[in-house]
């Protein structure tokens, strides 16, 4: 069970808002880069987020570039999962490749600061503050296998190949 507080963001949170291009020189220094996570969407986020908390977006979360640094810094901030109504394709794949759960559910029902509990097995997000249960779309099987190994590299190290057909 994942537990934490919801940090609410709007629609179209781009990878530029998560890790801006102007900080590209910090990409080989991930701990430094992670201090700026989501800075252009909410400059106070990095200071407030606690291990276990959730990033909650609207539609098309993670649109934009292929920078894997986006899910990396979100994970480094201690975020246990990103919830959104929909995700951009590359961000979704990158998050799974880094072992960061990305869950598609009706986030309109979640408010900033709500306490959430996520049951990955059952596919349920329990909003403790509101006492509502939301179901999230099952992660596709091929991707779940990668997530379960903690990401793509550990998965390939273990199996030596893709085992998803």
């Amino acid at each position, binding site marked *: 069970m994942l537990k934490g507080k919801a940090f609410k963001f709007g629609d179209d949170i781009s990878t530029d808002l998560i890790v801006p*291009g102007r900080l590209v*020189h910090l990409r080989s220094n991930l701990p430094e880069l992670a201090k700026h996570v989501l800075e*252009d969407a909410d400059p106070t986020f990095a200071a407030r987020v606690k291990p276990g908390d959730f990033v909650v977006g609207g539609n*098309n979360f993670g649109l*934009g570039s292929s920078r894997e640094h986006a899910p990396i810094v979100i994970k480094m901030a201690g975020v246990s999962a990103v919830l959104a109504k929909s995700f951009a*394709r590359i961000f979704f794949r*990158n998050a799974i490749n880094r072992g960061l759960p990305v869950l598609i559910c009706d986030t309109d029902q979640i408010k900033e600061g709500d306490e959430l509990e996520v049951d990955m097995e059952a596919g349920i997000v329990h909003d403790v503050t509101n006492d509502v249960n939301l179901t999230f779309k099952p992660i596709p099987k091929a991707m779940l296998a990668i997530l379960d190994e903690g990401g793509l590299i550990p998965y390939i190290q273990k199996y030596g190949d893709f085992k998803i057909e």
Partner: protein
Amino acid sequence: MGKTLAEKILSQKLGRDVSAGEIVVSPVDLAFVQDTTGPLTVREYQASGFGAIADKRRSVLFLDHAAPSPNAQLSTDHLLLRSFARDTGCVISDVGAGVCHQIVAESMARPGDIVVGADSHTVTAGAMGAFATGMGSSDVAVAFALGKTWFRVPETIKIEVKNKFQQFVTAKDLILHVIGMIGADGATYKALEFGGKTVESMSMSGRLTIANMAVEAGAKIGVFPSDQTTEKMLREMGRAEQYRSISPDKDAVYERVIEIDASELEPTVSRPHTVDNTVLAKDLKGVRIHQVFLGTCTNGRLEDFALAASILRNKKISPDTRLVVAPASKRVLLQAMDAGYMRIFIEAGGMILPPGCGACLGVHQGVLGDGEACLSTANRNFKGRMGNPNSFVYLGSPATAAATALTGMVTDPREVL
């Protein structure tokens, strides 16, 4: 059942029939990274104990986003990529050569290829009939190591375009119009396939512009059939033997077909801060623009420069704006010099950057000041994109960019004739 282009390319590659919705593991014909995503790929590769590169002649590292590098950290990243190329035998395209997607189009991608790149605009090569898509650094590290990757075969939205563009209306206006219509997530996880009479007569340069921006509607690929235009381009690049004809079946099954009449389109602009926030250029009269950026993998080609130069010839840009020009590749730069376009830009008051991404991603060479606005021919206008979250980016065609440079305000190019 008939196949879409996406299904066809993957079926031919795999030697069996696949259709939308299937998960496949596919060989990769070309894999690449650039200097902002590549260092992570290299570190993943080195740390994970992967052996030799599967196909080092088709695994490429591009130094283009920071070219030349503006600071020590990025210069050190460049060193890492160069030494990895030396050690593994991968291909390196060093600073000054140009933007990855332009070089992939000029000298690497072939019709029917599967192309993966650690850059979202890898979709650009779809213009040549390749299945080309952007991925993260880890995915490309694995493609380097195994020579393969996995895909879900995408459903396809077909964009069918008929009739002729009006003067000063371009492929850029068409794709901005499409994205404005279907939205920034209108094609998420899907293929955008382009066809119809207008597309058949469209130049490769225009096709590259359109395919490049497919990802701005969320698409996995933006793909065109290959035809005599593709063949001609390959021949010009000395790669005539790499031509293959690829087209969708007549009875292909599309999720949706969108018909567009090119003759009805007008110069179109995306307003800050999303690409689907489109409006006609003429409806933005009076919006002040402090910098015009002509270049990028979207519109930094010879044909784009020819169009802009035709508007700027013997004219001066507004004293209240700057014109920054970045050719997409060394080849484009040389050809534009020979054709006299660079002289026209400089005499009009513009400045020329080396081939590369330049100001596009906000690292250097044209970062905007607080409250400033840029009209860019790039593909993306997200908040902070050009290096400052307190600035504004509008997107338009090279014609709109040139007209805007003349007036210092967003301008429909038909109004400066």
